[in-house]
């Protein structure tokens, strides 16, 4: 910690004391985190990168736009101050309570989704048949073809974040834009003109954001357009996994069960959530299909124990689809409603 020559010894001592207390509290809290709940190093690193990417996108967009507005008003000093911020805004925001928990949760799930998708074993179909999305993009049904082409594009965009696109839902983009604007205000020293420029810039970024083009939304659109009949679901799900199109896998399952995409995604990326097997049974998938899905996921995620799954396969395959559907009914309720129920529970 740097000692500012203007600070009195009391101030220095008080600040250092507070910092030591905070650190000690974090270490104690960390000690009690169960081993399985702790982020592994790789996921943590990817999370930091992912956060710095989305914050960076908003930081650049809002800062440039606000500085341009200030310069147009002749307030060059304030514009320079904004552009001259050297602090890493993502790191500055990476403190408890500075970022919405929902954003961090979303980014963790996304990182896990991407890790899983990247590691899925590729399964080729018949020789000379194009891979799944490429084939769907060329089918005569123009709704399916357009959605498949949009998913190819959205996945390319997600892996190579284009400037100004956070890839977040509208709600999270909205909340993060205000946090980034607030961080820039604090780092640039505030002032009425700066506030006004940052507000305009944040509003512009929010207005320009289109969540309908994000991978999740586009995958759901494609699943809806395909509208697989029960007998087609198994082969489609297997093929989506074999083509490493995990978003489509999730969307097809979510569409079949009428559960929100985010709910199904959370089950798929969590190696210990048994509800995934209930989902597969509720979608009326047979033993072989369930086994193939479990094997592909286990090959991609070493935390999944395929031997334990094999012990339980007969039990899982014996679950009545209707009973599985009933057990999953709470998941089919709107997320906001379920969150509200949790909040008002005594």
């Amino acid at each position: 910690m740097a000692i500012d020559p203007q600070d009195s010894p009391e101030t220095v001592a008080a600040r250092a004391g507070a910092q030591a207390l905070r650190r000690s509290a974090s270490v104690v809290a960390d000690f009690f985190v169960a081993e399985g709940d702790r982020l592994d190093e790789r996921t943590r690193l990817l999370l930091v990168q992912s956060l710095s990417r989305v914050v960076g996108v908003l930081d650049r967009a809002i800062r440039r736009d606000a500085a341009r507005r200030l310069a147009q008003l002749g307030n060059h000093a304030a514009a320079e101050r904004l552009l001259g911020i050297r602090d890493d805004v993502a790191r500055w925001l990476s403190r408890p309570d500075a970022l919405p928990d929902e954003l961090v949760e979303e980014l963790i799930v996304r990182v896990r989704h991407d890790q899983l998708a990247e590691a899925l074993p590729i399964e080729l179909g018949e020789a000379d048949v194009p891979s799944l999305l490429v084939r769907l993009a060329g089918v005569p049904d123009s709704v399916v073809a357009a959605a498949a082409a949009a998913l190819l594009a959205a996945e390319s965009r997600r892996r190579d974040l284009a400037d100004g696109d956070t890839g977040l839902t509208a709600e999270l983009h909205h909340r993060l834009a205000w946090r980034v604007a607030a961080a820039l205000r604090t780092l640039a020293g505030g002032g009425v003109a700066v506030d006004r420029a940052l507000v305009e810039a944040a509003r512009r970024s929010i207005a320009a954001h289109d969540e309908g083009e994000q991978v999740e939304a586009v995958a759901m659109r494609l699943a809806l357009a395909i509208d697989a009949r029960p007998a087609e679901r198994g082969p489609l799900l297997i093929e989506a996994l074999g083509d490493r199109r995990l978003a489509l896998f999730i969307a097809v399952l979510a569409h079949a069960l009428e559960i929100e995409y985010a709910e199904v995604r959370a089950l798929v990326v969590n190696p210990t959530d048994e509800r995934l097997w209930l989902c597969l049974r509720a979608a009326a998938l047979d033993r072989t299909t369930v086994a193939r899905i479990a094997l592909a996921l286990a090959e991609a995620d070493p935390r999944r124990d395929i031997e334990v799954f094999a012990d339980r396969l007969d039990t899982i395959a014996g679950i009545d689809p209707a009973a599985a559907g009933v057990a999953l009914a709470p998941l089919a309720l709107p997320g906001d409603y379920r969150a509200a129920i949790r909040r008002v529970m005594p």
Partner: protein
Amino acid sequence: MIAAPDRLAAGVLTINLDRDGRLLFADPQLAALNVRAGGAIGQPLAVPALAMIARLAVRLGIVVSRAVTVADDAADIEMWVRAQPETDGLRMAVSGWREIATWRPDGLRDPALGLAPWPGNWRWETDAGLRLTLISPAAGARHGFDAFALLGKPVTTLFAFDEDGDGLLPILSALAGRTRLEDQPARLRGTGVPLLLSAAVRSDGRGAFAGLIGTARSVADDRLEEDEPLPLRFTEELDRALRTPLARIVANADSIHAAAEGPIGSDYAGYAADIAGAGRHLLALVDDLVDLDAIERPGFVVEADTIDLADVARRAAGLLAVRASHARVAIVRPDADASLLASGDFRRTLQILVNLIGNALRYTPPGGQVMVEIVDGNLAGVCVSDHGKGIAAADQARIFDKFERLDPTEAGGNGLGLYIARRLARAMGGDLTVESAPGRGARFTLALPAG
């Protein structure tokens, strides 16, 4: 580097198991592997990795395909295994049998390795039918085409492939041999922007070709890179930044391997030995890169002192005595009273001779010998000869080129040693030459001006 394929067993090998998992039939190569692991016909499979896949396929009732590495006596064997449950038992098909050294300096195990982002590089990927499944949107913005409109189209709608300097299309050999694609010249369709393409091959669960993961870089960027020599500071930083941590990695891995801090599983001790081996290889590479940078810098000079070549040769042989005894190879060094004065730099001359003797040791079979002799003539010389497999006439010039290795699958060496040795010899006013014939060993002669 030359991308020579490893020894690949042709075709698909079969194993049949009965309903209780006992071995009914195995092709000879697999039967031999199973016997070496302690198994026999009528017994359960003894190779653990294969037995595990067989059991899993039966329990899940589905086909299980996996790439596995099986430890065999001398080397590890990589193979693709496909286990298919049938009514009366299980059929396993094994393909892509490939013997690998315990650790290799190339990245064949990780298809995406070496495709790290570099400023100006952009990504592209295809499926098995070479249709584009990913293009960096930034590439479209940069070169003025619609990246998204090309998704799903054949790769040839994006790139026009050109022949390389030898009149070949590297992509054809990459696809045929399933090897990495390096430096395929190409132009962007429509704009004609010249590019160099590199790509790793990805495989599916059965080892079949499943597409390319590629990068593209503008040739213009490349020229820029070549024209600007690395700043001196960069090499110094590289040296400092890499050598210390690498040395620490090697030291720690060695002590883990030696179980210095208590007992550990033999698997982990083996991994630690691999880590130490890889670390040592990288340390040697850092040394060579620092040398390479020095000798390629304009104005590079080597000190010219009067040195005793016989003495330097004896010291070089002495430095490698332990390695020679491990390899059960004798080094015949110049007599203790022999002396031959030459003009050159002591440290650099020692470096050249250590390199030559080290190479000779590597290629000499156990029980053989490496001769280190002094030769007096117009120039003062030292000859290092071995009785190894020799070098074909066509390859003799090539071995002195940068990053050339005749057999890239061999452990050790990075293809810089002889290049550096010859450059150093020439900088001292001498030369480094080779005489050899296949099967007759090789004889390297370092000649320096007489002192």
